[in-house]
Structures are given as C-alpha cells and as structure tokens.
C-alpha cells in the first residue's frame, strides 16, 4: 500500500440527492468522503497448480476501515485479505453483506441485506468465482471484480461501510493491459465510504 488518497466523489452527488430535503431541513449536510486504497498487497499462498499443494503459506493482510490502514491481527481489524479471499473479524463481530448496485446510488443499507460474520465453514463474503466480489475468467485467466458488487461491512466499532473493489492487479491497470502471466496479482485497489455516526445512511 503506497498511497492513500481521499476522494471527494460523494460531494458531487450529495447536493443532488439531498436537494429536495435541504429546503426544509436547516441542518447542514456533511458530505461523506470515499476513501481510495491503492495496491494493498495481499498475495495468495504459493500453490503448485498441478497438484494443489501449498508450497509457501503467506499471511493475511489485516485492515482497519476506521483507521484506514493495515494493522496487526491483534489490533482492531475489520477485514483481511489474502489472494481472492476476504475475511471479516468475527471475534469483534464484524459482519458483511454482498449487494448489487451502483456504489454512489447505495445511500442506505438495504433492508434485505443479510449481514453475516465468518464461521468455521463459511465466509461472510463468499469466495469462488461469481459468488462474492470477483469473477475468474478461465478464457483469459484473469480475476475481475464483478461490476456492481458492493460489499457492506459493519465495522468492529459498529459503523456501516460500503466498499467497491476496483482491481486485483498492481497499479489498477485497465483490463486490456492485464496480462495474467506478467501483471502482479493480489494487489487490491478499492474505495470505501464509512458512516461514522452509526446510522445506516451513507
């Protein structure tokens, strides 16, 4: 993770979304800011493709959404990455749900979103192509975040976050430039928006 940038994406949308209400509501609207995390390196275990044998086991990378930084497993982490697997911190009762939609348009946690935590046998963010956040294309051998998949996470502090994963390859390259043999993978680029007041609105 080299740089972390703040984006003011939602400032552009907020006046539109709240335009009607602002006339009647004297409270000023505080725009929430989406955070962009670039190239979070979380390489998968080194696996012999022909036998499935793990040659070298690699650690999960633990991330705190509240702090916007990598932390250790002992600290208050929310989500953790390794390869295409994303875990949530079940010991701190971090929960997650996967929904479909456009990031900006999700202004509220949908009522039908089912939040779960990781268990012994399952992940709140399902793994496998097409199940969770990515599709694996066996024709081009690339992992692509599923457009329109948004991960909702209730952090260890109980705040709701929406996350959109943008790329699995180093430098967030356009899809045409990804060569699965040479482009380093296991580098997450994602943006997220955290509602610090504990409400379900973004």
């Amino acid at each position: 993770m080299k740089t972390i940038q703040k984006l003011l994406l939602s400032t552009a949308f907020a006046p539109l979304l709240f335009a009607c209400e602002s006339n009647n509501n004297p409270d000023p609207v505080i725009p929430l800011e989406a955070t962009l995390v670039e190239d979070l390196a979380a390489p998968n275990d080194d696996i012999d493709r022909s036998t499935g044998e793990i040659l070298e086991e690699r650690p999960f990378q633990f991330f705190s959404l509240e702090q916007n930084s990598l932390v250790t497993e002992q600290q208050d982490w929310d989500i953790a990455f390794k390869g295409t697997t994303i875990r949530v911190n079940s010991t701190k009762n971090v929960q997650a749900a996967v929904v479909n939609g456009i990031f900006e348009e999700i202004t509220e946690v949908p009522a039908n979103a089912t939040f779960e935590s990781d268990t012994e046998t399952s992940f709140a963010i399902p793994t496998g192509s097409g199940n969770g956040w990515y599709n694996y294309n066996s024709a081009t051998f690339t992992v692509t975040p599923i457009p329109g998949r948004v991960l909702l996470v209730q952090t260890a502090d109980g705040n709701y976050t929406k996350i959109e994963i943008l790329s699995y390859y180093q430098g967030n390259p356009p899809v045409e430039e990804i060569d699965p043999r040479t482009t380093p993978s296991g580098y997450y680029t994602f943006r997220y928006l955290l509602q610090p007041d504990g409400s379900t609105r973004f």
Partner: protein
Amino acid sequence: MFRFNLIKLILLLSFTISAEALAAIQGDEKMILDQQGKPIPFALVKVDQQKPMPVDQSGQIQTTVSGDQVIIFAMGYETIKLSWEEWVALDEIILEEKTENLDQVVVSATRTERSVEDLPMPVTVLNSQKIQETGGMRLSEILREQTGLQIASDHGAGLQMQGLDSDYILILLDGEPLIGRTAGTFDLDRISVSNIERIEILRGPSSAIYGSEAMAGVVNIITKNNKEQSQATVALRHRSFNSWNPSLEAGITQKNWSSDIFIDHFRTDGFDLTPETVGQTQNPYQATTGQLKIRGKISPKLDLSLFGRGYLENSTGQLQIGRDENTELLDLSNNREDFNFNPTLRFKPHENWLFTLRGMSSWFTTQSSSRYQSDGLLFDQQDFSQFYHRTEFQTDYQIRPNQLLTLGLGQLVETVEATRYEDKNRFDAGYLFLQHQWDPGQKINIVSGLRADLHSQYGKRLSPKISGQYRISDKFSWQASIGAGFKAPDFRQLLLNFNNAASGYYVFGANLAEEGIARLEEQGLVAQILFAPENLGQLQAETSWALNSGFRWQIQEKTSLQLNAFRNTIDNLIEAAPIAQLVTGQNAFSYFNIRSVVTQGIELDASFQLAPKVSLSAGYAFLDTRDQEVLEGIDSGEFFKRNSQNQTQRVVRSDYGGLFNRSRHSGNFKINYQENLTGTNWALRAIYRGKFGFADRNGNLILDDKGEYADGWVSLNLTVSKTLGKGIFIEAGGTNLLNTATPAQPNNPGRVLFVGMKVPLIHANN
C-alpha cells in the same frame, strides 16, 4: 480397354517440361477432358461451319482442317468456343459439367433421393469441383469458405451453423452419423477430403428424421463411388508447416459388384502462435484414414452395400507446469481412433416399394497421457471409449406418383467408459419416424415429418417438421419450413465425475450430483448447499423451434440468387452451475437446464457469370444472437459494467452483443477464371469474418464492452489448377495470403502455401 499408365510416373518426375515442349512431342493432337481430367469419348469438335468431328475413345482428336473458330461440345457439358489461335495453343480442352442442378440430388434432406429444386428447405450442395477449388485437405477448410458457416476452435475444429455450436450439428458420412465428440465438438479435422464426391449442407433442424443433434442442421459427406471397370489414382499434396498428404483411391467394378478403397495419410508439424510459451498452438500430428466400400446386387431386387472405415490419429506435444523456479516439463501424447462398419440391404420388390435395412456400428476412443520429461514418470492419463450401434429399417412407399411415404423404425445402443466416468455406462433408445412427401400440384412441394424418440435417459421426445415450397415461376420458388429440434444431454452432462486438484473444484454429471454432494458432505467439505441435488430432477433434452424461409431465384442460366432467413428459439439449454459451496471457497458444479437462447439471421448467396470464362459469386450472412436470461437481467438492472474512468454503470440493451464467438456479419466473394492459353483454372476467394465477442473482460460475464471483441478479418485464398494430358491434375495456391493471425483464432495459423498433384495410374472403361 485396360491400360497401366506407368508412363505417368515418368511424367511425374520430369514435371518441369514446359507445355510447349509437351505440345511438340504430341504434335497437334488434342484431348477433350472433363474437370476430373478424364477423357470425354463422346465429345464433338466443329471448325467453322464444317461437319462436327467426333473424338476417339480416349478423348483425342487430330484436326485435319483449319478455320477461324472452333466449337467443342459434349452432352451434359458446357460448350466452349475458341479462336483458331487458342485451339492451336492448347493440348487439351477441359469441358465444364453443366451447372444445371441435374446432378444435384440430395439424400440427407428427406432420406430419399430428391433433386435440390424440389426441396422445400434450404440446402447447399458442394460438388467435387467446389471442394477441390478450396485446396483444402481437411473438412474444416472446405466448410469455412461457405456462407453462414464458421469454424470455431474449441477442443477441435467445430462447425458453427445458424449461430449454433458444433454440439447441435449432426455430421453424416454417406448418410450415417459420425460419433466421437470432445466437450461437444465434433472435430472436422478428422475428415480427409481427398475422396469426397459432394457435401450436402442442410440448414435448420432435422430432428424430425434424425433425432438428437440435428438442431442447427446436418452436414452429409458423400464419398466417391467408382463407376468404371477399374481405376486407381494416387495423389500427393504438400503445404506449409511441413504438412504432407499422400492418398490412394482405387476401384473395381465387375458385373454386379463394385468396390472402392481409399487410403489417406496426413502429417503436419503444427504451428505456434505464442512462441514465448512452452507448447504449440497446434501440436504436430499424423492421421491415417482407410475406407472400403463394397456395393453389389445379390439379385435384381436386392442390393447389398458394406462400408468400413478406420481412422487413427496421434499427436505429441509439450506442456509446462508449475511456476517460477518450480517448473516441470511434460511430454504429451494423444491418440484418437475411430472405426465404423455399416452394412446396408436394399430390397425393391416392386417399383412402388423400397425396403432398406441399415446397421451401423461405431467405436471411438481417445487416450491422452502426460509424462514428466525429467524421469518419464506418468503425470496423468485420461481414456475415453465410446461405442454406438444403430439398426434401422426404412420403408419407402410410393402411394401415388406425387406422394411418397417413408416410415423408419430404429433402435440404438450407446456405451461409454472413461477415466472421468464411473463404471461402464449404457444408454438405450428406440425411435420411429414418418415422412410424407407430396406434390399437390405442379407448383407445390410439401414435406412433412414426425419423429418419436424414446430414450433411457431423457424419456420421450416428439419432433415434428413441415416444409413447403411454392414455385411462383420456372425461375423463382419460395420455401418455408417450421420444425422442432432437440439435443439429448451428453455423457459429460450426465456422468462426469471430475475434480480439479489444483484449484479444488468439483464437477458432477446430473446423474451423479446427489451422490457426489453426499460424499463431499461426509468428508466435511461442504460449506453451503446452494441447490439441493435431490431437487435437481432429471436433466431434460435441449429443445428448439425453428422457422426457415427464403427463395431460390434462377435469374439467368448462370445467374442466381438464394436467400434464407431463420430464427431458432432454443430452450432448456444445459449449463454448468454451482450447486454447493465448499469450505475451501471453491464450488461444486452440476448441469442444469437453465438457458434460453435465440439465434436469427439472413443468409444470401448470389452467383453471376461476368464473362464466358469469368464467374463471380458472393455470400453474406447476418447473425443476431441473444441469451434471453441476460436480456431479462439487463432490463431489471442486474448487470453492471465499468467505463474507462472505472465508474460503475448499468448495462443497457444497446451494450449487449449477444453470444460470444458469433460474428454479426460475415461473407465471401469468389472469382473463378478459366484461362484458356495455359489451360489453368483460377479460384480466388476472399472470406470475411466480422468482429466477434472473444471473452469477457469487465467481469460481468456478458458481451457488452468494445474491448471484449476480436477484430474481423479477411482471408484471401487462391487456388490455381490445371489438368494435364492423361488426366494428371496439378494445383498450387495459398490460404490466408495476407497472413493475418490473431490469438483470438487459434485455428488460424497464418499464411499457408500448398502444391499438389493427382495422377491416375489405372484407368479402364467398359
């Protein structure tokens, strides 16, 4: 007359002698030959207004008079007019067979002999001349030049017709089905073209007479039948990538019996579009075909024919496994074998009755093994063995001169044994079909049919079809047909038991899903059942309804226009989908009847005589395909994509490009030129394949982004051929002369150059 033309072998060696030198040896004796290089003993030559002179038995003539113009004619052949200078310069004159559809009898459309003009369904017939003009050695190379047909590379060279894949196209050899598919694809490269007499391409579903697989259409390959007392021809062809194709054809006819033997060998070094990686795009392979046909009359009313064919193929290659410093090289070896034996009895007790009893047995096996190059130890071994037997009894009854009724009854047994399947599996089926051909008036032809299939796996299936034709005038006829097609679930979809060790996923055939999931649950591997396997039910056949309609318009003798529009609505398409999530995060898959697809389009063929020696033809195909579920998903806003700024947007209908690997536009343009001075035939063809969806790039798995298309391309192909004296045939040319190669088309090696020669060794007529 019975001659051994050994002298041709000498000619073959001294092939560099110029035409002039040959002319000097032969004096001014001319030979009149047909397009196969055989003499036409009944040809006539007329100089100016003088009395026509017949040629001799060997097609030779020596002109004793001179004049300004020479006319050469023979019944059933196109007349040629030459100036005296042209006549003097030539040693032999080749007459083209008349292109009127007289010889265009089609058997696959109705399982009775019927001429093309009387058929109310879209049929294309490729005769031996058209086959030879492509310069192709394997069947895929002939079919890829035809309007509306594409060759897709997926576990072999698979045909695509009316937007449907190889899985849905029935391939017949002399009327009997060929078996042996890998992942649904029938590899057309298994068929050598050296002894093909003609190819019938029947578009639209024909399940009403053929049952399963005949959903998009039928391709019937008809091999040569010797009509002479004895004949033998050897041929040798060579082309780029060190490919060689020697073949031998021979036939003997004695009294009521005739036999044909054919042996063909093909070998190639293959090619590699990605030299930076280990392993070739096409591995080197060699293939040998042997075929024997015996036909005869046991009595005036009883005919017997025996057909036997064997095919052996071996390919070798290399594969690299592992990553970084842990790589290992594997040696690959693949064998494919295919045997057919088809005896047929035909009994015609009366002119209105014909009974045909056919037996057909086919064995298809593949073995693929990979071994470590370092120590020779076995890495993986996969075997597959399939047996198919069919007995069929067909009765044709001429009710009236304008009504022909056909009744067929058949039973079939199919067994399969494979590394990835458990045990030996057997399917049984029986069927019955009924067809009525009726010409209610001079202008109307109607063919209606119904077939019932009863299968041990997918139960009952009824497939009706009705086709009609109305002749508006002698030159213009309109056809329309509506029919049902189906494809039975294949072995893989029912019986597969596969576990990918490397990534840890499982695939179970529908019959094994319940048991497979239960076993995984026992092992504690299942995290979540997505679809209870006991609710899977039986896998149903994939079904379709299709409409075909168009016209045939013979504008002038050699100018014609043909059009066919089609729409296929296919339901119950079988697709692999996850049924359980595993604790490893991977999935277990099984097969479901889940998709519905529509393919529709228009195919247009035009031919035109530009000048006496120049003919043109053009073809165009428009194809539109769509997955109904995807369209519903788009309408309800379930599909998203990312734009170039990486912003997520909803996919709209106009973004959707239909099914992958389908070209919306494709076509061909062909010029044939007969050059009299050198006696050569030139066939120049430009084959266009428009852009097509190659692979999903933006993660939503559908074709909706510009970057997901492979570019269109034109293949420029040229064949130059000449028939020399004594029927020696030589050819040279090239395909894909512009050398366009793209990794999106792994079956396209780039430019290929070829030369070939065919020499009749024995040639005797009664």
